[in-house]
């Protein structure tokens, strides 16, 4: 073996260094979409990070002002495209509050069931994708296998795999198909073992642990100051879950734990999501057990299409209402509402101002990923370039939601 010697350098002459600007993205696999980070580097250290977003901006809020309330559901699908049922639910709840109505109990159960399936689908992807960004490829392939099961369930329930648009104001679009509950129960039996598989793959993987534990620590104060929400904030030790603290739909009837970690590092955020999937399975099982019969759609012909089409064929009033609803939509009373739910990524809020017409005067989406991405500024020790990837992955932004 040859001896390694330091390169000779004239005595007393310092190494010439300068700051380097580095573009990460917008086309880079670890940015999970089209995010561009301008990084200021001092050697391997990151001194400043400047995210540039907007590559996927579609003007959802502007478009919504020219759509009727029912037409907006497909737009909300395309916010966080990993979990459309959650987005649909948030929007439906906001409109229902303005209208002063509530969906029937069965519809509420179906919505919660779908939202929790979506939560698993969103979390399972990042559970696999974060290790993949850090060099552990295997978990993602397993995660995709389970995500496929959820996609199949979604297809069975709604007919679409990704953009489901299943909620409607006052209920859901259709009832659950026959045999669907058994399929979901089958999934609930299988899935907890699969979560154990991911943990076994990763919790002793030294590369994964070295690159996530103690990396990207966000303190609780910083997290709140930066507006983080959802698992990102709970991983910093803040005990806040809208499902428990401000229960909507039937969450007050369900028994589940709010997962909290105190470390606030990338590993804690990853762990939070893994544990939340277990809780989601518990919620789904309770929904299946408690699922009542009855209507899946509110009985108000001015807002929802009648389930019994015979009425439309036999009664003049019902026909007119049906025509009115399909041609013009329904009017929503004047007022404003801010309604937030616990989406998989955090607090998803819809602020709607209605001027009494069929279209919202203003719709603002409080997208959790948009705010969570600011967590990049809150990490106290993300020094190395490679750590930026870990922090970004663990914050789990979905760029479609960031850019709206």
């Amino acid at each position, binding site marked *: 073996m040859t001896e390694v010697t330091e390169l000779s350098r004239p005595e007393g002459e310092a190494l010439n260094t300068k700051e380097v600007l580095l573009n990460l993205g917008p086309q880079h696999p670890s940015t999970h979409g089209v995010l561009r980070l301008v990084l200021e580097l001092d050697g391997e250290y990151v001194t400043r990070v400047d995210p540039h977003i*907007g590559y996927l901006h579609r003007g959802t809020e502007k478009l919504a002002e020219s759509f009727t309330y029912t037409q907006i559901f497909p737009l909300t699908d395309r916010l966080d495209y990993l979990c459309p049922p959650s987005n649909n639910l948030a929007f439906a709840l906001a409109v229902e509050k303005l209208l002063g109505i509530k969906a029937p109990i069965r519809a509420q159960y179906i919505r919660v069931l779908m939202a929790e399936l979506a939560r698993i689908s969103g979390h399972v992807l990042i559970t696999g994708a974060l290790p993949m960004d850090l060099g552990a490829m295997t978990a993602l392939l397993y995660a995709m296998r389970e995500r496929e099961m959820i996609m199949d369930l979604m297809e069975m329930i709604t007919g679409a795999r990704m953009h489901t648009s299943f909620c409607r104001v006052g209920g859901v679009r259709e009832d659950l198909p026959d045999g669907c509950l058994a399929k979901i129960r089958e999934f609930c039996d299988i899935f907890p073992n699969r979560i154990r598989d991911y943990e076994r793959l990763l919790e002793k993987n030294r590369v994964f642990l070295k690159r996530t534990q103690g990396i990207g620590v966000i303190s609780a104060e910083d997290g*709140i*100051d930066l507006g983080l929400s959802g698992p990102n904030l709970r991983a910093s030790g803040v005990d806040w879950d809208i499902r428990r603290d401000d229960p909507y739909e039937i969450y007050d009837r369900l028994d589940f734990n709010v997962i909290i970690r105190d470390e606030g590092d990338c590993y804690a955020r990853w762990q939070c999501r893994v544990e939340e999937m277990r809780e989601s399975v518990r919620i789904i099982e309770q929904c299946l057990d408690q699922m009542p019969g009855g209507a899946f759609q509110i009985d108000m012909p001015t807002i929802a299409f009648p389930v019994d089409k015979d009425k439309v064929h036999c009664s003049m009033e019902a026909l007119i209402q049906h025509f009115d609803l399909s041609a013009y939509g329904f009017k929503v009373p004047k007022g404003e509402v801010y309604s937030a739910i616990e989406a998989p990524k955090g607090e998803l809020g819809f*602020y709607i101002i209605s001027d009494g017409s069929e279209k919202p005067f203003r719709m603002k989406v*409080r997208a959790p990923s*948009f705010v969570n991405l600011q967590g990049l500024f809150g990490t106290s020790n993300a020094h190395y370039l490679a750590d930026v990837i870990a922090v970004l992955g663990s914050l789990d932004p979905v760029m479609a939601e960031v850019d709206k």
Partner: protein
Amino acid sequence: MSVETPLNRGPIAERFGEAIDDLGFAHGVHAFAVPPEMIVELCQFLKEHPALRFNFLSDICGVDHYPEAPRYEAVYHLYSLPNKWRVRIKCRLGDPPRVPSVTGVWRTANWHEREAWDMYGIRFEGHPDLRRIYMWEGFEGFPQRKDFPLRGYKDKLNPFGAEGPPPTLPDLATRNIP
């Protein structure tokens, strides 16, 4: 709404009295209207008062009430993590819209305010870095204003846009704002 507000309004009324307008409680949120010059003071007060502790800023958004007289509005949604209360603060702004920035109170306001600037042209005074966030640098106009056409304006990149120049010409000094 007949539902009684859970919010403890005592300290707010005591401190600000007639200066802010109580808009009442509806759909789980208590709303206040406040003149723009008081917004930072009010936010600081709501955040730090031991009985209120509105420590979480959910959202800031701009609204365009065209053609009403005070045309613009900045709307703030606050949440109190310890008390589980929500508050909405509304701030009507003239033309051109200007309002002091609350980035000094919550760092999360940074991007919300950049978004409102980008979409509505609301200038947040004292913001450390008020650049466009969604649209590209050099984009003309503020797309979510009510007089901005849905399809945008016709140019080389957008052959299907509306004819004519943007009715509200923006300040193009988007980069060098103190």
